[in-house]
């Protein structure tokens, strides 16, 4: 990390930037500077205004947005520029990459063209020349057989490759500044690590200054020299990374830090005396037909001979990146997809064979909470209705009492009664997940499957949900199957963990061990790519900050 030598005029100087949409101010008096060659991190949770800030710098906000203050690039106020000058600067002096590379690439044009476009536009070079350079760039950002890849379309690229392509397009004109808006959020951890590595290297080689926007303090700490912490559109704290992390001045910063997965272990009752086996998965295989058409016979194996066991009362974690088959396992357990081989046994009886009464009984014993907070709730039902429905449908109580029980459940997941008649889209993501939990617990299940339930949430919210989960598990002596891509979370929550890769279990064992001394190379890669805070002295749990459920 190249420390900026002081006295040098800042490359970017943002003063009292305020962005408002109609009456609502999304960003309030934000000021910060960026020295040449420096990597500045902006951390904050959704709604903190970090994205709006950097979009304001690029003047990318919709017509409705009003931006005041000054944003000076090399002393030139961007906010004062006319359309033409702006176009001359965008992509030329400032490059930008985005959270979701998939949607930010034009699906209809070849990667090569898209990488070449800015250069052709700004450097006045010909198409052929542009393509040649594009190939070179693609190579630089670590894409194999660049000539071939330059000719393919975005949908033929993996997420990581897309992001690399975006970066290539952004750095084509050797900009002075690269703004990276959540560049790794949509990517798997291993890929994330490599992308971050790439950015670092770019910075080291070309001295390219960067602003890295992220919700993940870990990521920021990993590559930034300085960090700006934002919340509700305001800067709460900024300074050199070490100071901020080790000597946070603002309570919110502390909260952020301690919410980092893996920072604190949820002291999950690691009852060493193993309870009796509850659920056993034997040599389970699931295949999906891939590619339709006349001769579309080939099929793809989502799960390939998986064996695992869950004992009553314990918390088992399943880790794996997207496509590793971990969700398929969950869905198979609750019979959403039918295995092509092997069996799932609950208390020894084959789940696949259940029907009628037995099936209903099974439904009551095994429940699941889903990944997407909004999508997992019927948008037309109030949350109270949603939670009450399973109760009366299973004839446990009539509709009226069901409603009362629902209220109790909502209470239990710490949702204020004032929300009970709201519909999902009127709630925050965290609140929706709480509803999801309440609904799943309505049938008083034994085994609860949690599939990536926090992956769409902010870290602080995630921390709260995890706390809640642990508490509920204690209260209701739940057996928990926790599925996540985040090894840190899993290891801090679970006693045992299975690591999935491409439909197979590559490693299993006691969580702490797997995390500390991974045996399988893939696991090692996972662990290695964990963007973790420099573990210094643990910070005392701070009270009084954001106690309300978000």
């Amino acid at each position, binding site marked *: 990390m190249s420390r900026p030598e002081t006295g040098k005029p800042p490359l970017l100087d943002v003063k009292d930037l305020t962005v408002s949409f109609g009456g609502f101010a999304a960003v309030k008096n934000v000021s910060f500077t960026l020295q040449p060659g420096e990597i500045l991190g902006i951390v904050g949770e959704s709604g903190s205004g970090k994205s709006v800030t950097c979009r304001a710098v690029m003047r990318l906000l919709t017509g409705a947005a009003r931006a005041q203050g000054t944003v000076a690039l090399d002393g030139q106020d961007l906010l004062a520029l006319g359309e033409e000058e702006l176009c001359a600067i965008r992509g030329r002096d400032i490059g930008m990459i985005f959270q979701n590379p998939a949607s930010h690439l034009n699906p209809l044009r070849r990667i090569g063209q898209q990488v070449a476009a800015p250069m052709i536009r700004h450097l006045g070079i010909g198409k052929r020349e542009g393509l040649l350079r594009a190939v070179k760039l693609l190579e630089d950002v670590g894409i194999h057989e660049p000539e071939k890849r330059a000719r393919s379309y975005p949908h033929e690229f993996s997420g990581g490759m897309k992001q690399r392509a975006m970066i290539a397009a952004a750095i084509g004109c050797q900009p002075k500044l690269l703004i990276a808006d*959540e560049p790794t959020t949509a990517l798997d951890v291993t890929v994330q690590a490599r992308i971050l590595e790439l950015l670092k290297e770019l910075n080291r080689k070309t001295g390219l200054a960067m602003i890295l926007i992220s919700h993940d303090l870990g990521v920021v700490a990993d590559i930034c020299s300085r960090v700006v912490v934002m919340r509700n559109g305001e800067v709460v704290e900024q300074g050199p990374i070490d100071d901020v992390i080790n000597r946070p001045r603002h309570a919110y910063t502390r909260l952020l830090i301690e919410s980092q997965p893996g920072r604190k272990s949820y002291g999950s009752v690691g009852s060493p005396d193993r309870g009796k086996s509850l659920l056993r998965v034997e040599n389970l295989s699931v295949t999906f037909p891939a590619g339709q058409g006349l001769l579309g016979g080939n099929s793809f194996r989502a799960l390939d001979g998986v064996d695992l066991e869950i004992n009553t009362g314990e918390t088992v974690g399943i880790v794996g990146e997207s496509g590793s088959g971990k969700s398929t396992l969950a869905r198979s357990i609750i019979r959403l997809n039918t295995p092509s081989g092997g069996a799932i046994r609950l208390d020894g009886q084959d789940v696949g064979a259940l029907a009628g009464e037995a099936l209903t009984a099974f439904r009551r014993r095994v429940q*699941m909470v889903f990944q997407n907070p909004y999508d997992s709730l019927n948008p037309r039902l109030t949350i109270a209705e949603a939670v009450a429905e*399973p109760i009366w449908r299973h004839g446990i109580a009539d509709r009226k009492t069901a409603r009362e029980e629902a209220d109790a459940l909502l209470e239990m997941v710490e949702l204020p009664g004032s929300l009970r008649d709201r519909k999902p889209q009127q709630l925050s993501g965290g609140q929706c997940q709480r509803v999801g939990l309440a609904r799943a617990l309505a049938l008083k299940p034994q085994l609860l499957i949690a599939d990536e339930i926090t992956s769409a949430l902010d870290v602080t919210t995630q921390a709260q949900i995890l706390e809640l989960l642990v508490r509920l598990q204690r209260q209701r002596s739940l057996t928990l199957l926790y599925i996540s891509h985040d090894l840190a979370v899993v290891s801090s929550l679970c006693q045992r963990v299975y690591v999935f890769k491409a439909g197979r279990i590559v490693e299993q064992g006691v969580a702490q061990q797997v995390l500390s001394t991974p045996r399988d190379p893939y696991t090692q890669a996972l662990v290695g790519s964990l963007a973790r805070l420099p573990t210094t002295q643990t910070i005392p749990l701070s009270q009084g900050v954001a106690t309300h459920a978000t």
Partner: protein
Amino acid sequence: MAESPVLAQTAPSIRRITPTMLVALVVLFGWLALALAAPVIAPCDPDAIDIMNMLSPPSAAHLFGTDQVGRDVFSRVLFASRIDLLLCVAGVLPPLLIGTTIGLLSGYFRGVVDNVFMRIYDLTVAFPFFVLVLAIVGVLGPGLLNFILALTLVGWVSYARLMRAQVLTIRESEYIQAAKCLGYSPAAILGHHVLPNAIGPVIAYAVSDAVLVMLAGASFGFLGLGAQPPAAEWGVMIADGQAFVQQAWWICLFPGLAAISLGLGFALLGDGLGQIHRRGATA
């Protein structure tokens, strides 16, 4: 992360009735009122023939003039609104119900049902609409009822298709999986979770489809296969008037305008509903 609050802020509220929708409702209820009040308002018996003054131009006595057998065009336009309104409803409801059901089932259960349905779909789509209706009406003989029957035989497909598309996306959503996981019965899931979330665009389409139905009705009336004389129906009036349009433009003009205005009512309403739905989708 989940969408930025900025969007949430700027996104328009879901339930908002646009001014155009208001106009639409006014027009529709206006026509409904006219249709119901026709016997009261209409100056003459719509079927009363007056050989002595046929094709007489608009006048105080006959606001819209008289037609080829001396009937009062104004009164007929009024009474026709009854048939045409009825036509719109009766022409839309059956295909809506049938199509929605089929689309719902085949979209949710897929498998054989779906395949069969898709084949029928291919067939009906490749069939030229007018020819099919023409042929069917030819077999069953002319008349509104048969026309509606024919229309249903053809029309359900588009509803089924639309519904199916909706269901295909919804069935993948997590709240449906949750419902399955919670052990709800298929009936419960379909009725309580899928249908309410899928029906929106279908309704919007149905309303705008009413326009097409009316036009089709008129067109077939025009080909002499719609409403039977002496019953007044706008399309038929236009068709019969066509022979005399050279001397008596009023016979064709006014029914046409009436049809357009009613059509506008439905179209605007459908447009509004569609917007609301789209907003709902984006918000």
